[in-house]
């Protein structure tokens, strides 16, 4: 055996703490090691060439790289191995950067000792490494996109335009998501509906996109290249082809329901169209509120429909199809301001949340009018954000700017309006944000730094007295306002939890779905072929959501465009001679990759599906007989590593 060991300086990241020479000298003492070298940047082109030439010149058959985390540059060095004609799985990395020089930067001696230990452990493991072969699996060009807000729409259009088959599933009757509800967008003040609706109508026009609205994903099974999806499709009871959207069915309907699109500020009927820009542009009969179809309690809408588009005799339908990759774009919900009772939301009639104010400004025709909200208006920031009391530590990122925008729009509608924004910090990080903020200040919007303590409603006038400390002037303010707008934060959409359960995607501590790597894989998940787009991953504004959606589409295309992919060979395997068929591993596997199969002699045996298996090792740990082993981490290797460590 001829092992080569490389110790990387990482341009000082490692060598400023760890004594590289000592690591080199220690490695030289190990058996089977024929070459030890150090290099300032092993991952650079020069470093890779050095390794490549050494492998050939010194006839190395195994390599240890003591450098950074294998998560970071593992693939780089595996590629070098392949180019040099070696199997990429006879390479080991010792992480002496994250685990030594970074973690123990104040303790250079101990960091060096640990680096030596980790290098020795890697050498002891590489001795027992055997070449592993990756399986090639076919992959097609079909994608499931869950959620048709702006992120889902953008990802679907990108994929559709690139020639991929898209199944776009949306639980609401219309696509468009929250963006369709907004008045204008910051900081450019484009009309939100005007820029969104052309994109919305592009969706049904795209021949590669199959749109399923009023539908929810019920189950997903399988793996990259073979995800089997079941969607539950609710009937709308209105034939979208026959429906002319004349609206004759609406006035005859006896039911009034708060209109979701208008945040409950106006009423809709049980048969309705979500908005003027709804896509598909067709009416929907909402059976949750309709007097009843089974038995039929009222048929006024059908009687009124001249186009004969209404058919009550329909049932929910299960649609099944297979896709190769999945993009999750299930978006966000706004924070329920009732959880901060001191602001009186839902109790005081002149307290609104920001989305309601978007509707008041954006939809002059229905519900409350902007002219009716009074002259003196306060916006309260960070309602449901940056608040440890209610377990929401994160910043929702969009509220500073949307509050500025709402203030600007209100001010423009009536320059006499006296508008104050009570903020924690103004976060104007984006392109054009700071300029927009300055403009708002110049136009007379008052920015007061202080978190509002409580609001008191005058029982006669319904005016609202705010109590707050101005933390810049250190004065206590008590002032009366006509209207208070709560800048509510963003939180994970309730629907996300369903899809998270189905796919077992992890979430971060804030409750949003977790990306595979915060820097280098920001739209991937740890499930192969499943990507994230938009606010499902964390609060973000429209341009960020769109950028991420396009990125998710590109990442999905990257996998699908090659026609086949290499499945990771580090999986569990079962020693059939030892396996007692107890089935413990079947229950413990988080990926449903193991099944207990009956053999011809009547005994049972655990069988691993190598595609589903992620190589987590749970089964190996749980196996009472030691039959379940993990390739590349088998028990003899672990033992050797432990011995080297001790």
């Amino acid at each position: 055996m001829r092992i080569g060991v490389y110790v990387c300086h990482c341009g000082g990241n490692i060598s400023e703490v760890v004594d590289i020479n000592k690591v080199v000298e220690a490695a030289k003492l190990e058996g089977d090691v024929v070459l030890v070298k150090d290099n300032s940047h092993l991952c650079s082109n020069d470093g890779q060439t050095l390794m490549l030439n050494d492998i050939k010149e010194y006839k190395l058959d195994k390599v240890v790289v003591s450098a950074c985390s294998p998560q970071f540059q593992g693939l780089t060095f595996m590629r070098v191995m392949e180019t040099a004609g070696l199997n990429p799985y006879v390479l080991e990395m010792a992480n002496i950067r994250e685990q030594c020089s970074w973690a123990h930067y104040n303790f250079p001696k101990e960091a060096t000792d640990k680096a030596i230990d980790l290098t020795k452990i890697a050498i002891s493991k590489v001795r027992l490494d055997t070449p592993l072969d990756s399986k090639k699996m076919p992959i097609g060009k079909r994608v499931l996109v869950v959620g048709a807000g702006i992120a889902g729409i953008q990802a679907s259009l990108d994929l559709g335009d690139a020639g991929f088959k898209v199944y776009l599933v949306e639980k609401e009757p219309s696509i468009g998501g929250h963006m369709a509800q907004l008045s204008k967008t910051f900081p450019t003040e484009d009309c939100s509906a005007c820029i969104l609706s052309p994109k919305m109508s592009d969706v049904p026009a795209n021949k590669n996109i199959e749109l399923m609205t009023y539908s929810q994903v019920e189950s997903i099974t399988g793996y990259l290249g073979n995800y089997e999806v079941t969607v539950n499709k609710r009937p709308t009871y209105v034939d979208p082809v026959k429906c002319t959207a004349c609206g004759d069915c609406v006035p005859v309907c006896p039911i009034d329901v708060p209109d979701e699109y208008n945040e409950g500020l106006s009423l809709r009927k049980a048969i309705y169209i979500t908005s003027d820009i709804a896509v598909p542009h067709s009416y929907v009969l909402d059976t949750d509120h309709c007097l009843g179809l089974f038995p039929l309690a009222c048929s006024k809408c059908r009687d009124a429909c001249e186009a004969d588009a209404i058919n009550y005799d329909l049932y929910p339908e299960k649609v099944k199809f297979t896709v190769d990759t999945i993009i999750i774009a299930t978006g966000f919900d706004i924070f329920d301001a009732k959880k901060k009772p001191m602001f009186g939301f839902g109790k005081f009639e002149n307290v609104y949340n920001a989305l309601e104010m978007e509707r008041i400004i954006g939809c002059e025709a229905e519900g409350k009018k902007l002219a009716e909200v009074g002259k003196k208006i306060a916006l309260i920031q960070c309602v449901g954000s940056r608040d440890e009391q209610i377990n929401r530590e994160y910043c929702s990122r969009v509220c500073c700017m949307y509050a500025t925008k709402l203030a600007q729009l209100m001010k423009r509608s009536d320059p006499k309006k006296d508008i104050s924004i009570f903020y924690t910090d103004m976060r104007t990080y984006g392109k054009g944000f700071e300029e927009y903020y300055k403009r708002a200040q110049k136009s007379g919007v008052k920015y007061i730094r202080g978190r509002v303590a409580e609001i008191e409603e005058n029982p006669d006038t319904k005016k609202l007295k705010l109590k707050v400390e101005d933390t810049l002037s250190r004065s206590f303010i008590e002032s009366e306002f006509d209207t208070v707008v709560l800048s509510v934060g963003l939180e994970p959409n309730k629907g996300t939890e369903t899809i998270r359960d189905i796919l077992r995607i992890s979430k971060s501590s804030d409750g949003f779905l977790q990306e595979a790597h915060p820097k280098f894989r920001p739209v991937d998940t740890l499930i192969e072929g499943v990507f994230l787009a938009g606010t499902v991953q964390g609060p973000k504004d429209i341009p960020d959501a769109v950028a991420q959606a396009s990125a998710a589409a590109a990442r999905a295309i990257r996998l699908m465009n090659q026609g086949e992919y290499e499945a990771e060979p580090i999986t569990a395997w079962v020693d059939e001679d030892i396996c007692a068929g107890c089935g413990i591993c079947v229950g413990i596997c988080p990926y449903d990759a193991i099944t207990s199969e009956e053999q011809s002699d009547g005994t049972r045996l655990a069988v691993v599906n190598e595609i589903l298996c992620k190589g987590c090792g749970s089964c190996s740990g749980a196996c009472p007989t030691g039959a379940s082993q993990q390739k590349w981490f088998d028990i003899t290797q672990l033992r050797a590593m432990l011995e080297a460590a001790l």
Partner: protein
Amino acid sequence: MKKIPYYPGCTLKTTGKNFEDSAIATAKVLGLKLLEIDRWNCCGTVTSLTQDDLIHHIASVRNFIRVQEMNERGEVDDYRLLTLCSMCYNTLKSVSNVMQERPDDLDKINNFMDREEDYKGGVTVVHLLELIREMGFDEIKSKVKKSLGKLKVSPYYGCTLLRPKEVALDDPEVPTIMEDLLNAIGVDVIDSPKKSMCCGSYQTVRNPKTVVRLGYEIIESARKRGAEALVTSCPLCAFNLDDRQKEIKLEHPDFERMPVFYFTQLTALAFGLKKDVNNFDLNFTDPRPLLKKKKI
């Protein structure tokens, strides 16, 4: 009848006698016997927030030792210590928490008090309102004999029942425990935004003007919303809100006095108990004209 150790504190034996008598009578109707702990001493009034100021906790700990002894002698059925005064509740409960969380400090205190048996920990502190909630407000409703329906009363929590949140007996932002009780006995409950604003507390000694200002705000806020009386569970709040009405009247000549009840006086009324348990003579503003007007 269930016996529970009871800590009265200084005020309930003097100016707050009306609170104590009505509370004991109310508890009796609910099947509770309040057994006054023997040789009780001051609760310590106001917990010291200084980490190492253990001497301040000793007063409370001594009272806990009394509870421990009563339990060892089998005189009571509860390891909890019941209080009525909000300030005692706050102080005792804070110390009980500290002793639970910092066993080293408990050791220090035990070592310091060489003439007392060691406090073993575990005594928790409850307010009568909490016990009532535990029994269920339906139980209260079933004991009501007399309708108080026409009486419009605004609950006043003050601060010590609700803050800090570690000792709070209810949600510090939206407490409902007193409302629930008052609803159960059929009082017309008036909500006021100032119900947990500070009454001025001990500023009443050094800075009575502040107390007068705050009292005026609290009373007028409730009156504006239709209240005819306030209800509280704290003798100090009662003093500040009620006795200080004399000074409020001097500053605001058209101010009308508003009675301040202890919640137990209203339960005693609703349960149809003897009038003398309420000792209305001790209320600074006599509530009897109001009750008469309401035919109660």
